[in-house]
């Protein structure tokens, strides 16, 4: 995969802006490692940094995306992580209670 765009440049339709070469969200073929493939172990090493937009080196990004385009297992894992992050964001949002807001307003008045 030649797309070296940083993942944060692309809204997350699929993990980290990943696209399978056929344009679908799901690789339709199983693992086909080639000479350019970094392999699952190296992909796992960079996995979360990539998904969090923290992988800065263009070559590393390209290698990771190449692996994702060819490895169904890692691609599925990335899909799961993206969905899980979305659900986490939605679930973890907590509104501060009114009592706390009042308490902080009163606290500010003292300064």
């Amino acid at each position, binding site marked *: 995969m030649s797309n070296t765009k940083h993942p944060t440049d692309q809204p997350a339709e699929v993990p980290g802006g990943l696209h399978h070469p056929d344009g679908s969200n799901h690789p339709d073929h199983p693992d086909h490692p080639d000479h350019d493939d970094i392999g699952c172990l190296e992909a796992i090493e960079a996995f979360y940094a990539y998904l*969090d937009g923290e992988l800065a080196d263009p070559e590393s990004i390209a290698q990771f995306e190449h692996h994702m385009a060819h490895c169904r297992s890692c691609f599925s*894992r990335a899909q799961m992580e993206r969905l899980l992050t979305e659900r*986490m964001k939605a679930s*973890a949002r907590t509104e501060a209670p009114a009592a706390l807001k009042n308490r902080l307003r009163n606290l500010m008045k003292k300064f």
Partner: protein
Amino acid sequence: MDALYGTALRLTRDANDAEDLVAECVAKAWSSIGSLTDRTRLRPWLFQILRNHFISDYRKAAVRPTLTSLDERIEQEGDGEVVSLLNEQPDEFLKWWADPETEVANKLLGEQIMAAIDGLPEAFRVTILLVNVEGLGYDEAAAALGVPPGTVRSRMKRGRTLLQKALWEQARDAGLALDKAS
């Protein structure tokens, strides 16, 4: 304020303690705002104050003193453990999870996901919340936690892997994954 309260709640696991912690954090921040030279770092700075207060005033009083040593032991385990944890989850489970037809992620209750997060050791729990929920970058989370960025990176890797494992076990115990994956 909501972000601070949400993080405090996950740290203390108690609504009253969380309110106290946020109030102390805001008071401290307000009184020492002059020490913040780069205003773009306000968020990580606030989270840093929050966590420092939690460590100094709340964690010491925790009734589970072994938690800290457990956190440290887990954190010190190598990346080989991450690979082994990832290998525990069968591909079928991952495909099933990500399958738009089953919409597992949407069916999972927020409470179930948060319970899995709350079950993580503190170091991983807080790092994941700061990065994935509050949107802090690794360097910002590192500043908030007082650790090197590389530690945030390794905590994210290990913490998210532990979270996957917890969800896999949750699905397996409920018979969900087995029904679809077998």
